[in-house]
């Protein structure tokens, strides 16, 4: 009888170990793949380069390149008031209804809702109104990440 109970303890220990191991494996795989995506987004962020030209009227020409990413970028223009100029880079639009989610390169959710994104071919001049922060967004493995911002004004 004692032999049976000892055997059951061993089995229980094995089962418990397997369960815990499986749980951690699932977690670590998910976490790892998330980190891979975030690292890729950070890589894009590190390669971002932009120039703001001389304004014409109220518009500034902006040219954006990403030396770590050749693909299409997306831009979102967020206007701000002069009083918000000092903190423009931290501004986010109010979230609304919709499925578009924009993440920061740290994985933080910046926005969820419906956001009018402009498809941007790298190196093309784009005219930006004064007092606008331009979110530079890249699609990394299906997720939209804000890899940088250009504050104009």
């Amino acid at each position, binding site marked *: 009888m*004692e*032999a049976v109970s*000892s055997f059951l*303890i*061993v089995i229980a*220990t*094995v089962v*418990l*170990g397997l369960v*815990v*191991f499986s749980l*951690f*494996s699932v*977690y*670590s*795989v998910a*976490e*790892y793949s998330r*980190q891979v995506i*975030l*690292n890729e987004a*950070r*890589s*894009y*962020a*590190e*390669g971002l*380069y*932009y*120039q*703001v*030209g*001389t304004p*014409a*009227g109220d*518009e500034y*020409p902006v*040219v*954006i*390149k990403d*030396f*770590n990413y050749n693909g299409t970028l997306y831009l979102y223009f967020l206007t701000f008031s002069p009083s918000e100029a000092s903190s423009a880079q931290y501004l986010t639009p109010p979230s609304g209804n919709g499925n578009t989610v924009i993440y920061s390169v740290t994985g933080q959710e910046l926005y969820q809702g419906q956001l009018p994104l402009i498809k941007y071919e*790298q*190196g*093309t*001049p784009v*005219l930006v109104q004064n007092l606008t922060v331009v979110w530079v967004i890249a699609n990394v493995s299906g997720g939209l990440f804000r890899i940088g911002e250009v504050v104009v004004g």
Partner: protein
Amino acid sequence: MTIVRTWRKSNRKDKGLSAVIGMLFVLLIMLAVLIPLVTYMESSPTMQEQAIQQAQPYLQKAQEQLGEVNQQNSPVQIYYYDGDVYLVYASTPPVPVNASYFLLYNGGTVKIVMTPQPTKTTFNGYVAYAYQVGNGYSLVGLVTTVGNIIYADPYTPPGSASTSSTSVDGGALPPLPLAVSLNSNTTPQEIKFNWNQNPIEGYFSSGSNNAISNKGLLFTFTGNNWVNLTFSLFCGWGPYDPSPDTIYLLLPTTAGNPWPVMVTFNDVQGYWNLTTWRWVPGGWYMLIWTPQPGGQPIRGTYSSFGMFDVVKIPSYQYSWQFFPGTYPIKLAFHITQGGVTVYAYYQDNGQWYPIPLPDQQLPQELWNRIKSDCWGYGQVYSAWLNYIGSFDIANQQIMEAFNVYYGGYEQGVNEWVTNFSLDGKLGGASNGGQTTALLDYYGSQWWQAYWHFYKPSDYGFITVPGYNLTTDGMPIGIYQGPGYPTLPSFVVLDPGLSEIMVAWSPGIGVENYAIS
């Protein structure tokens, strides 16, 4: 009994085994947690570092390109002229300059166009690529394939400069604002921008040699420094006159030695010339740069006030041109032992342009300009000049036409500080003797004045009797009461010349007055 004992031994062994197995699983679980954790912790910085390293060469290349195009001595210049944008290659740039788009500014709007196919040509003797973008744009920007925006400089071909000028006689200039941006590869010992007071005037009004040290535009460099200094300031520029005004530079000297180092100069693209210099009590040299028209050096030009320029023109009378405006200029001084190089730019609408002077053959009258508008006077006036004649030192005769200029400002109620100067030539014939010259005053009266000619070894100074140059310093403007002028002393810079030309100006507010 024996069997029982054996069984008991076997039971303990199994228990021990299960505990070991359990521990192994615990270890396994720990590994399962730790390994991804370690990977997670390790991978982020490494990946980020790799990303930085990956982008670094491109970022560096883009930055380098900004420094190589349209900068001083850069291998590639960009000009916009007659509807074409010229990429002018003085040499091959380390970073290629490939255009992808053009930004064309016109009347407050900007147009973006794809880069047209260039035509290979030459520009001022250099290989160039011309892109036809069309006429009439106030500003043209070039977007390069590495993501830079570089703006083209306007180009004015030789001989096409406007020769129009407007004199502002008796007019008051508005107080000039000041904007300074500074860049230097060498830290000067002292750079001060204080335009509230003319340093020279400050010196003379206070009588203190130290007064100059903290007023006005002051650059101080000592030793053997290579200085690449860029600053901008608001000065008297008019929209109709893109040419540079006179620039003054003060250099410290060794006390008691008037010219320990004769600083020579190099023309920079022929734009500017060091036309004169003077010793200023307090241990300073004042170097004066003026535009160099027509390639003719302005020898012996001097101003008693140290701020003006005198130019000989075929007419007996002319006035200074004031160029009110707020066009900052940009200068870079390369000062080495025995060498000074000046670059001049002006800024318009936020953009820097090289001052297109030398090829433009500016009329001489344009370089006769007063500096007061750069020195922050509230009220500055101009006046017409009187011609008297030149004075031959050896024969003590008035010989020929000369030019003088005159300026002043209101010191107080009914009190004017006047300053005048002459286009002087004083020769080696001077020997310390005293000479008389006659000056006309208001066209009806001759005033007699005396000059004492120092020997050339005394640097050719001339003073009025009783005026000791060494102790009293440089001559200054005079106070003019109602109708009674006194004669200031003069300094002539070139002791190798043989005549002195003298003129006299009637006074503030009196214009168009001349004798013949």
